[in-house]
Each structure stands twice: as structure tokens, then as C-alpha cells.
């Protein structure tokens, strides 16, 4: 159920991004997300709620592309990285140490937005340069 709330947060962030291009409205082709496997997000469900939420909005038709980021831990004893397995209690296979350090898998990140402008820009309204400064996440 919380994918609905996740989508709402995502739309708020997208609206803030749109303001950077005002008064023009970007036509968004794709929104790329990075979602870690050690989060409470079900990617398929997020895609469904996104498709429903953007209908009739300025994001109508924009595809949500989700890259799954695997859970990777680092054993604090021997520094080896490993894939924590719930069936093995997330322990490091090398030292059987508890999952103390997580290297990746907690990502909930809007990586990038692919877009364009449907009308040819005039000299005074040139398209923005690709790449805004990354915001703190």
C-alpha cells in the first residue's frame, strides 16, 4: 500500500524539477529510479501506481524505469563484500559475522529524467543544459 505514498513523494519531487524549466513544461519520456532490494519497495507495484497516478497529468505517458540494486554487505572482520542471504540470517559467509555494514541495497533514488520539449525553442528560451547539480538525497 505504501507504494501509493512513495509515488506521491516521487510526483512532488518531479513537480519541483519541472519548476526549474518554467515556464516551459518538459515532455518526459522516462524517469529512471534506483531501488535497493533491502528496502520496503516492490518495484512492480510502484510501476503500477505510477502509471495510474500520472494519467491526465503533465507526466502522462512517462515511463517509470526501475533499476534494482542488490543488497551487498561488507564483513567487518575480513572486509570481504558478500550478498547477504535471508535464509542464512544475512551473515557473512566468510566469518559468519552479523550484517553490520551495508554497501548497497538501501537505495531509493531518482537517478535521471529523460525528456524534451515538444515545441522548437526560440533563441530566448533555449533548452536547459542537460544535467542539473545533483540534489542531496
Amino acid at each position: 500500500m505504501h507504494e501509493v505514498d512513495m509515488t506521491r513523494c516521487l510526483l512532488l519531487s518531479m513537480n519541483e524539477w519541472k519548476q526549474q524549466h518554467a515556464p516551459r513544461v518538459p515532455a518526459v519520456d522516462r524517469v529512471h529510479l534506483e531501488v535497493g532490494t533491502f528496502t520496503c519497495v516492490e518495484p512492480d507495484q510502484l510501476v503500477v501506481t505510477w502509471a495510474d497516478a500520472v494519467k491526465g497529468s503533465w507526466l502522462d505517458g512517462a515511463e517509470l524505469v526501475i533499476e534494482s540494486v542488490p543488497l551487498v554487505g561488507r564483513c567487518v572482520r575480513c572486509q570481504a563484500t558478500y550478498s547477504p542471504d535471508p535464509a542464512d540470517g544475512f551473515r557473512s559467509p566468510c566469518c559468519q559475522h552479523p550484517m553490520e555494514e551495508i554497501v548497497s541495497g538501501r537505495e531509493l533514488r531518482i537517478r535521471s529524467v529523460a525528456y524534451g520539449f515538444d515545441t522548437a525553442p526560440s533563441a530566448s528560451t533555449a533548452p536547459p543544459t542537460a544535467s542539473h547539480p545533483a540534489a542531496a538525497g
Partner: protein
Amino acid sequence: MHMPLEDSLGLNLLAANQHRAEHNREHFDAWNLLCLNVMSSPGAGKTSLLERSLAALSGRWAMAVLEGDMTTLLDAERLEAVGIPVVPITTGRACHLDAAMVSGGLKLLRQRLDPAALDILWVENVGNLVCPAEFAIGEHRKVALLSVTEGDDKPLKYPVMFREADCVLITKVDLLPHLPVDVERIEAHIRQVNPRTAVFRLSATTGEGFEAWHDWLDAQRQAVQTSPALLHA
């Protein structure tokens, strides 16, 4: 057709909630109070925990509760009976509290009292072992409950909640003689996903374990007074 462009954002998916949570946190720090986010599955004993802790600590600390519930005021009424100010937050269809809901609760609380006079603000989240773990509300500490009746596998099945918790309370331990469950195994599973968390075994019925739990609370309260910036980000 249009010229394809791409912006790199690197923005947290939950940035909107995070910004509101940070705003709440600024208020908590300005009021110099400790805010606790209490989370568990339904029926793990959050309200019973609060009833006992509020009654035991009311002479030592000034406290209030923001009480999250999907539809009813039942828990809020139980806690009001202890004599502590309680602001109910009914979430409707939402299965967790978010920072905006807590912000709304704070506005209602401020109509009743000056939060700067409080030492501890408890936020009882909606019963759910999944969603509340991802939505920050501005809390200083996350407290997760797991009752012995839920079995020893829950920390492994719902690892994000127990990973995020600063403190895990194993509740209803008075029932252990009647259950085929190994409390040592429960604690071991908690520590496997979060070796750094504090763990206490409690019974709200007998009072077992509450002294150690309250000592931990005292330490967190003192830490807020010492240096709020050092606490949970």
C-alpha cells in the same frame, strides 16, 4: 518528436517526506525534547508499553503522545486515561505515519500546550512492520517492538524495520513459559540484521525489564540535552 535530453538528479525518492521530517526535527531540537517513533506489527504491545512507561515516568519527565491509528480513537483513549496529553492522528487508508501527518499532529499539540515544556514526545506509529520503517518523521530514535507470540523469524522476514531500529523491545515475555519459542533465538536474529541496536526483554503485564528500558530512555533524553545534532540522522 523532441530533442532528447537527460537530467541527472541523484535525488532521494522520499526527498519530499525527508524535507518535512527535517523540519519537524528542527522543531523538536528547538523545543529540546526527545522524540521517539514507536513501531511494530499490530498487537505487539505498543499501547500497553506506553501505558506502563507513561505511568512510571510521568513524575520524572513531562511527556505527550501523538497517537497514529488508521480508523479509531481506541488507543488514544487508553493513553488519555493515564493522564498524559494525547493527540490522535487518524491516517485513514495510509498504513504508516509520514512527516506531514506528524507535522499536523504537532499543530494540534501546540494548541493544547507549549512543546518546549516537554521532555519526551512519543509517536505511536500505525501497526505495521513494513511501511513505517521507510518514512522518517523527524524522530531522534526509532523503537521497534516484537512480541514473543510473533515467532523468532520476524527479524529475518522484515529486516528493514529491525535494521532501522535504534532499540528493539521483545515484549510479552511473561508468556514464554506457554509458547514453543526461544527468546534467545529471537534476540540472535535481531542482532544478525542489526548488531548495534539495543535490545530489551519486557512484560507490560509484570513490569519485567522496564527498569533497564527506562534507563536507556533516560540516556537518550540526556543525549538530546547534551548534543541533539549527534543523534539519529
